């Protein structure tokens, strides 16, 4: 198959040059829509292909810092962090790494051994807490993440299937419904780019990202939804894109839903939905276990 320029196609009907240009144009459109030139942007980076790609592209638009959270997953995060550090050094990007162990006194591996909770529930509570807190301490006005179209279509379907309709308004290319000085809004520049497109772009650009699977991923509800959508996509090409398109059409209406006021955790003062944030609830269980 050949590209319109007659060069050999590498992804669908596009050559390397035109494919990369198309991805960059799509991502830049999202960045320019949601990121002001005056924003102080911090990019959450794990060392995986998505976060390296979004770091590279956001870095073309604004000076940024890579923020990495080391959950403490032996044989997994230590390896992806090596890729993150190598990438940042090669591209002269400042980075900061914060660990669960230093911030909470327990690695994720230790937390999972001590708590009888789904590993992903524990990980997400602490990671989100730390990302928001550290991004704010670093002076961010926006936190960028590498979530792509596949991640987002999964999130939409998961929340619908769990009937968690109050979460839907919080999704979208820019997250957050309530404005608060302690809460750093998040932007997802890869929102309209499929996971396969991101992987192809990262490969063509030579982003070195070691393939590793989180040992706890098998516990995730998301893994089942991911497999389901990927199977549907074979028969009904474009299904994930249409989930996103439908959601984006309805998002303005969803965002008008009544929202609860932001609360602040009585233990750590971080913004949360209830009286105590999930991270502090779990920490209390850890210290008493």
């Amino acid at each position, binding site marked *: 198959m050949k590209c319109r320029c007659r060069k050999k*196609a590498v992804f669908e009907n596009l050559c390397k040059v035109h494919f990369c240009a198309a991805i960059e144009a799509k991502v830049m459109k999202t960045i320019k829509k949601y990121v002001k030139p005056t924003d102080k942007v911090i990019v959450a980076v794990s060392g995986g292909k998505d976060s390296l790609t979004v770091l590279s592209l956001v870095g073309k638009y604004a000076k940024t810092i890579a923020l990495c959270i080391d959950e403490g997953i032996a044989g997994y995060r230590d390896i992806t962090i090596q890729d993150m550090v190598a990438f940042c050094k090669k591209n002269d990007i400042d980075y900061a790494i914060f660990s669960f162990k230093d911030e909470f006194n327990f690695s994720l591996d230790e937390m999972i051994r001590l708590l009888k909770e789904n590993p992903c529930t524990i990980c997400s509570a602490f990671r989100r807490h730390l990302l928001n807190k550290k991004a704010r301490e670093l002076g961010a006005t926006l936190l960028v993440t590498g979530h792509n179209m596949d991640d987002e279509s999964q999130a939409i379907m998961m929340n619908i299937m769990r009937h968690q309709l109050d979460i839907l308004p919080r999704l979208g290319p820019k997250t957050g419904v309530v404005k608060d000085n302690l809460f750093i809004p998040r932007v997802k520049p890869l929102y309209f780019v499929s996971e396969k497109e991101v992987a192809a772009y990262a490969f063509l650009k030579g982003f070195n990202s070691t393939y590793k*699977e989180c040992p706890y991923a098998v516990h995730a509800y998301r893994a089942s939804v991911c497999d389901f959508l990927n199977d549907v996509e074979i028969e009904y090409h474009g299904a994930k894109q249409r989930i996103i398109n439908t959601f984006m059409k309805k998002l303005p209406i969803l965002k008008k839903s009544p929202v609860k006021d932001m609360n602040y955790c009585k233990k750590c003062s971080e913004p949360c939905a209830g009286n105590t944030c999930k991270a502090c609830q779990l920490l209390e269980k850890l210290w008493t276990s």
Partner: protein
Amino acid sequence: MKVFIERLNKTRTVQFKGRVKDLLKKLNLNPVVVLVVRNSELLTEDAVLSNADEIKIISVVSGG
């Protein structure tokens, strides 16, 4: 044909010549979640493979 499947970290030897999409069917792999590489070049699904090729199949799904 030697086929390295990244997700399994294994190399398989298969008898095959034909298009990439047919190789993926033979290996029971979902084309939505993989990239196929030959000699560091990304291949589209209609690219033609020979039995002497060495292929790498990269998983696009994030590990976390």
